[in-house]
Every structure is written in structure tokens, then in C-alpha cells.
């Protein structure tokens, strides 16, 4: 402690001999530009504020739509953790989303289980298990697996699950599993509308805060290392494959949670939920909003879903083309997503763990 301070003082005494630049006072240097780092909480606060009051101003059918978006935002966060933070190119994130959806639909159909206290943990557990199995296979080799191997492996997993569901009579084939009964808590039914909306929003906020804690911890720093240069951090002694499997499993768990919420909200599950369509959609949400920021994933989901909804109403025939062009424009000119319009690079990367106060 004292040594560091003393050493710092030495540095501050004179100009840097090598670069010729005048060193700023060490006290200032040792303090991150915390004063300027305020945009992110403002954006997060605004989004939360809007989300909280939304059902009060929306018509009922729009609240149902908003609920769907909130659940998809949860799904987007699961992908953002895996890709935006850890750099694992998972093209099959829907596998965990859909597997949990199907799992809880079967629980409801065959066993009559609809209690939220069982359904949500079950969904998370299914997502976790599926991610552990696939992640164990794809990521846990003795040497790091290549990006191609992981992206094709996850894509194949998702595609295969989609085909399996389509062909399997027990899972309802092409039609999926219809008429899932409503989610329940004791004798109360939680059906679509404001109550479901606030349930989904509450879960989103809790998961968001947990993820925020995680990515801003020292573990988050290890993830940043993984994302930027996996080989390098292995030479520091990190067990890079383990880190990847862990974050992949966490991502799978969150996707599973989202999938089970989605299944009960929509009242049915169908093969697309497992497949490439949903897997790519979530990539677009995150790319559009800004990967590597949690709020970017949320904003991306809201905007893509919102714009699609509006466009499909007003430009029935050409809306997918308009949306596609919009996406391309953002990805070409704003590779860091919409959030990068308001968020600087330094704040996006952020810091990890808290700097001890007395050292500042």
C-alpha cells in the first residue's frame, strides 16, 4: 500500500523520461474518470421507467405484445452474455429457449404442472442441462475449440432439435404443443395481460441486475480477456475452456427461463422456437442494440420487435425488406450497435470490481 503510494509519488515528480510527456499527478491518474461515467445508468433508468409505466398507457393487446418483447429481451441477454461478453459465437441459443419451452409445455400437458414455482425452475434447469451437455461437448476440449467449430456446432444443435421436434409425434410434430393452460400461483391463474407483463418484467430486472453484477466483477474481466484474446489468457494460467463452459451454461439457464415464460405466455410451443429462426433473431437483437452491453440487448429487442410490429401493420408486403435494410445499415455503420450513439467506448468496456476507496 505504502510502497505503491510512494512509487506513485515518484512518478508524479517529473516528466516521463521516455515519452517526454508530462505525467499527470499520480493521484488523478489513479482515479478512473468516474465522474464522466454516467450515461449507462441514465439509459438503464429511462428504459426501466418506460417499462414500468407502459401497461398503464397501452391497450390490452399491446400489453400482450409488450410482454412478449420483455421475454425476448431476457432471451437476448442470455445470448449477449455468451457472445457479447465472452465472445462465444453461439448460433444455437434458441435450442435452450425452445427446449425449456417444450419441457414445461410437456409438464403442463402430461403432468398438469402449471405452478410458477415449479415451472420457472424447471425451465431454467432444462436450459442449464442442455447448455452443459452441448457446451461440454463443444467447449471443454483439452485445447480451445475453434470459432467455426463452436458456431457450427451450436447451429447444428439448434437445427437438429428443430427437425427432431417437427418429426416427433409426441412433441406434436409441425404443430407443436397447443393450448398450454395458464401459469398459476396457488389458485390464481397468471394469464396474459398486465400481471404477466409485470411478472416478466420483474424477472428481467432481477436477471439483468445479476448479470450486471457478474460482468462488472473480476469474473467479468476474465470474460473480457476471453473475448479479446483467448490464447493470451490461457498463457496467464486461466482455464479458458472452463470459463467458457460456465458462461455458456449461465446463458443456457437464462434462455431456459425465458423459454418457459414464453411458452406459457403464448399458450403453445412450436418447432421454430428451437430452431435457426429464433437463434438468428436473437443475434440480430443483440447486434442491433449493441453487443457487450446488457442494455443494448434489451434496446435491440425492443426496437426490432417494435419496428417489425409497426412495419408489418403498415407495409404488409415489403416490411421484411425494410427491416433487413435497417439492420444492415446499423451493422455496417454502427458495428457496436445503436447504444454506441450515446455510450462511449470507455464506458462500454467499463471497470471490474470496485477500486478500494482508501486507495483513490
Amino acid at each position: 500500500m505504502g510502497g505503491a503510494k510512494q512509487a506513485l509519488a515518484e512518478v508524479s515528480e517529473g516528466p516521463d523520461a521516455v515519452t517526454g510527456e508530462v505525467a499527470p499527478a499520480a493521484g488523478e491518474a489513479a482515479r478512473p474518470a468516474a465522474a464522466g461515467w454516467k450515461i449507462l445508468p441514465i439509459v438503464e433508468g429511462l428504459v426501466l421507467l418506460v417499462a414500468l409505466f407502459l401497461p398503464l398507457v397501452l391497450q390490452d393487446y399491446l400489453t400482450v405484445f409488450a410482454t412478449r418483447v420483455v421475454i425476448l429481451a431476457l432471451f437476448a441477454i442470455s445470448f449477449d452474455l455468451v457472445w457479447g461478453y465472452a465472445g462465444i459465437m453461439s448460433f444455437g441459443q434458441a435450442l435452450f429457449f425452445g427446449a425449456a419451452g417444450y419441457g414445461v409445455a410437456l409438464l403442463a400437458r402430461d403432468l398438469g404442472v402449471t405452478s410458477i414455482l415449479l415451472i420457472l425452475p424447471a425451465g431454467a434447469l432444462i436450459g442449464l442441462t442442455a447448455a452443459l451437455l452441448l457446451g461440454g461437448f463443444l467447449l471443454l476440449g483439452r485445447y480451445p475449440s475453434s470459432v467455426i467449430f463452436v458456431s457450427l456446432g451450436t447451429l447444428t444443435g439448434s437445427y437438429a432439435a428443430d427437425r427432431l421436434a417437427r418429426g416427433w409425434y409426441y412433441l406434436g410434430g409441425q404443430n407443436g404443443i397447443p393450448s398450454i393452460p395458464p401459469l398459476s400461483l396457488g389458485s390464481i391463474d397468471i394469464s396474459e395481460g398486465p400481471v404477466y407483463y409485470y411478472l416478466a418484467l420483474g424477472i428481467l430486472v432481477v436477471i439483468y441486475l445479476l448479470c450486471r453484477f457478474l460482468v462488472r466483477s473480476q469474473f467479468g474481466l476474465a470474460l473480457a480477456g476471453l473475448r479479446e484474446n483467448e490464447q493470451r489468457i490461457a498463457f496467464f494460467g486461466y482455464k479458458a475452456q472452463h470459463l467458457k463452459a460456465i458462461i455458456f451454461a449461465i446463458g443456457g439457464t437464462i434462455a431456459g427461463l425465458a423459454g418457459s415464460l414464453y411458452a406459457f405466455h403464448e399458450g403453445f410451443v412450436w418447432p421454430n422456437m428451437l430452431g435457426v429462426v429464433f437463434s438468428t433473431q436473437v443475434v440480430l437483437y443483440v447486434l442491433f442494440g449493441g453487443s457487450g452491453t446488457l442494455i443494448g440487448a434489451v434496446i435491440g429487442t425492443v426496437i426490432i420487435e417494435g419496428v417489425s410490429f409497426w412495419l408489418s401493420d403498415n407495409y404488409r408486403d415489403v416490411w421484411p425488406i425494410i427491416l433487413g435494410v435497417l439492420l444492415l445499415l446499423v451493422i455496417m455503420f454502427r458495428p457496436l450497435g445503436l447504444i454506441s450513439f450515446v455510450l462511449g467506448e470507455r464506458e462500454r468496456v467499463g471497470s471490474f470490481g470496485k477500486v478500494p476507496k482508501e486507495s483513490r
Partner: protein
Amino acid sequence: MPLLEASGISKVFGKLTALDGAALTVGENEFHGLIGPNGSGKSTLMKCIAGAEVPTTGKVSFVNTDITAFTPTERARAGMSLKFQITSVLPTLTLYDNILLALQAQSSLLDLVFSRTRRALHDQVMTMLTQFRLADRAFDAAANLSHGQQQWLEIAMALAGKPRLLLLDEPTGGMSLEERRVTGELLQPIKQHCSLVIVEHDLDFIRDICDRLTVLDQGKVLASGTIAEIQANKSVQEIYLRRA
């Protein structure tokens, strides 16, 4: 017993034999220079020792353990560290976080998740940054550093895990004379607790800091010994004359 003993190392890439039975022995607290003409296999030998390449044949022992089949992670945990030839600091992270990342590599998962080693490591981060004359830039992104400063940051990161052996591949590449001199100064103090293998083209630099040298030519060891022995060696002189 030497700290590092690599023997009979061969590495074949397709038709190219990069190393052909090379050997390297490094003692405790020894600074060992690895020199030779371009393409003589210096970097490949470094990579085989560090685990970035798997040798086709041969054996690497480190602290009396056969580590030939160890992954880079396992070698790092055994006390070996590598600075790559191409600087690979993490450009978007601050200098502070670059060093912290290296320092916390062996913290447990729970310690990382709950940031429990953060406080203890803070002083170490600042000490290392100060030692490598980077403290005033602590909260700059590493991408904003000059090339020479990035090299120092890398060396600091490579030393963070308190290795017993540090492998440096061309640490002064692209540095000014003044930066080279400072690099030499920065490396001297580590001798008390760490050995060094250094690949370098700058022979003056090597002469200033190394105790022993190994000369490679066409994948084979041409000579190995003290600086004086190598300077007196006829075949070594020939190679360097031939090159000049």
C-alpha cells in the same frame, strides 16, 4: 538440476523442418539469450517450450517435471510465462485492467465472481505499473500506448503471475534506442526470482543482460555457452559474418 531442460526438440511443418534436435538448458536465475539468423527456429523453440506449439519429437522438463504434454494453462500454473513476439495486450482494456487480468489468473472462481481478490491485488497492480513506468497511464486504454510502452505492459503482464521462468520473444522489436536501454533496466531486477529466455536480434542488448547464449542455425544448436565462449566461437562468427 537446471530449471528448464529441453532436449532433442524437433518440429516439422509439412515439408519444412523448423527445428532439428535442438536443445536448451537454463539454470535458476539465469538470463539466457537465444540468437541465430532469421528462420533458424528461435521462435519455434520458444513456442515449443511455452506450449504454443507441440514439438514433433523431444522432451521439455521444467522444475524436474516432464511438461512436454502440458497445455499453456498448465505450464503457466507450473510457473512459466511467455511474452509473445506480436504484442497482445488487450487493447480496449485499461492498463490497470490488463495487469489485473494477469494477476488474478489463479484466483478461484468464487473469488472472481465476488471480486474478493480485487482489494488485495490493487496495490500489486499499481506497484507493477509504477515499476514499468506506466502508472501515469493506468486508466488509459492499452491501445493508446506507444509500441514500446505496449511491450513493457506485456512484460509486466507476463511477470504478474510471479513466474520462475519468463520467455521473451523479441521484447525490443520496434523500440527506440532509449526504449531498449530502459527495457534492459526493467528486466535486471527480476533476476532475483526469475530466469529468462530471450530471443532478440539486438546483439548489444543480449550482451548487456544475458549470462549465457545459445546459438541456433537451421534448427540445430550451433553453440551454447557464456558470452565470452560464444564470441570466441569460430562457427558462430562465420554465421554472423555470412549474414553481414
